[in-house]
């Protein structure tokens, strides 16, 4: 899509999200090389939560400082504290502006954490990491950190926070209720949209 933007001379920017688990894949390197080679407006945003399912970064990558792969391909790159909402916002903003101005992709390594297990087969997520580590990281939950910061700065009141939390809970409950109340898709959906029928 970044190629198509350049082809048409548009000023849109693509933000492509992936995890640390994608970095050892060959595709990551092919994509970074092509974007850098052709100066495509793509922000590669790696959400590094330190574990690809149960395999830690240290067990998967010879270079665990993922942002440094950006240097390899000669594009702007930086690590970002992914638990800091405003820091992520600022870093992505810089990258988008630079993509428009300098016609260059960028690589952001956004350092974050997964509080739960990877899947239902991994409910505690505790085989490959310690409970202490998980509890320690939970104290840096970006939502809590941002809430405290907004309260301290007087941007939000306690009542505002309660209202936001209630609104979000209601929204999720409504969505779940809607999904539960919806009919199962008919079997014909299996064969719908396999091809686009031309007009």
């Amino acid at each position, binding site marked *: *899509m*970044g*190629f*198509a933007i350049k*082809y048409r001379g548009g000023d849109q920017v693509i933000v492509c999200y992936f995890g640390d688990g994608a970095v050892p894949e*060959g*595709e990551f390197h*092919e*994509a970074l*090389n*092509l974007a850098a*080679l052709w100066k495509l407006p793509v922000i590669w945003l790696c959400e590094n939560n330190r574990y690809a399912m149960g395999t830690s970064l240290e067990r998967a990558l010879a270079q665990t400082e993922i942002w440094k792969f950006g240097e390899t391909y000669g594009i702007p790159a930086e690590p970002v504290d992914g638990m800091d909402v405003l820091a992520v916002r600022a870093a992505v903003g810089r990258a988008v502006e630079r993509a428009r101005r300098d016609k260059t992709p960028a690589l952001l390594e956004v350092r974050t954490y997964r509080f739960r297990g990877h899947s239902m087969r991994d409910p505690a997520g505790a085989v490959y990491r310690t409970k202490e580590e998980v509890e320690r990281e939970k104290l840096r939950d970006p939502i809590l950190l941002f809430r405290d910061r907004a309260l301290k700065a007087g941007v939000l009141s306690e009542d505002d926070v309660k209202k936001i939390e209630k609104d979000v809970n209601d929204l999720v409950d409504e969505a779940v209720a809607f999904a539960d109340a919806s009919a199962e898709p008919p079997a014909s959906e299996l064969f*719908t*949209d*396999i*091809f*686009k029928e*031309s007009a």
Partner: protein
Amino acid sequence: MAVMTYREALNLALREELTRDPNVFVIGEEVGLYEGAYKVTQGLLKEFGPKRIVDTPIAESGFTGVGIGAAMVGLRPVVEMMTFNFALLALDQIVNSAAKLNYMSGGQYNVPLVIRGPGGPAHQLAAQHSQSMEVYFYHVPGLKVVRPSTPMDAKGLLKSAIRDDNPVIFIESETLYNIKGEVSEDPDFLIPLGQAVVRREGTDVTVVAYMGMMYRAMEPQRSWPRTASPSRSSIRAPFSLSTPRRSSPPSGRRTARWSSRPAPASRAWARRSPPRSPRRRSTTSTRLSCASPARRRRCPTPATSSA
């Protein structure tokens, strides 16, 4: 009409579609400066420039992904595989992205993409460069598969593939690039995808074939048993299962020929001829490598055999 080679017909189709639609571009290894490993894209860089004729590094998965992304937002990429054996490196992009995006997005993102290049038996290019990949792709829902046999087919089908709103796997043949034939020069000339054609009417046996095997099938004195003489055979190509399925041959005999390993399903199809036929256990032919006379002598079975 003009007489030209299969290669020139493909080149003409690309030129016409590049001229007609600014969203069409060609991307792949050596398609520009080098003018194509098999010269199918000869002259295109000079005529259309590097924006439309894009040379890539050796990164099949990467540049196929670029084509898919560009197609999702309305461009019409023609991705060249230097040979289709290299498409194996892009298989995840082709199968999991190109073929499935329309389905998985509920029709929101279609992928008007052509992936083209030579495939199948070539001139002594050894095991890794001689595979007939169409049988893999044919089993992937969401992909259309085309293998043109003649210069006319090459042009008309490639133009239809480029205008199609779905991903099309378009496999040419290295052994056919120099074959000459009549080709329409009408820029609006198209051959619709998915239709077989009867090359020769007959009464004794239906032969289903495509690519090089179509030509083998048309040379009866070399490859046909005496009882099914050429003048009494129907030859159908390019490949489309629906047409031969619907039309039962008058004789009840049919055989399929292609240049690949016989697949279990195709053998079963060949055996479904009516029992009154004395030759109901027709065997698929797989021996294009026995094409040269010296090799044919060493070949343990004739090009077409009957049980």
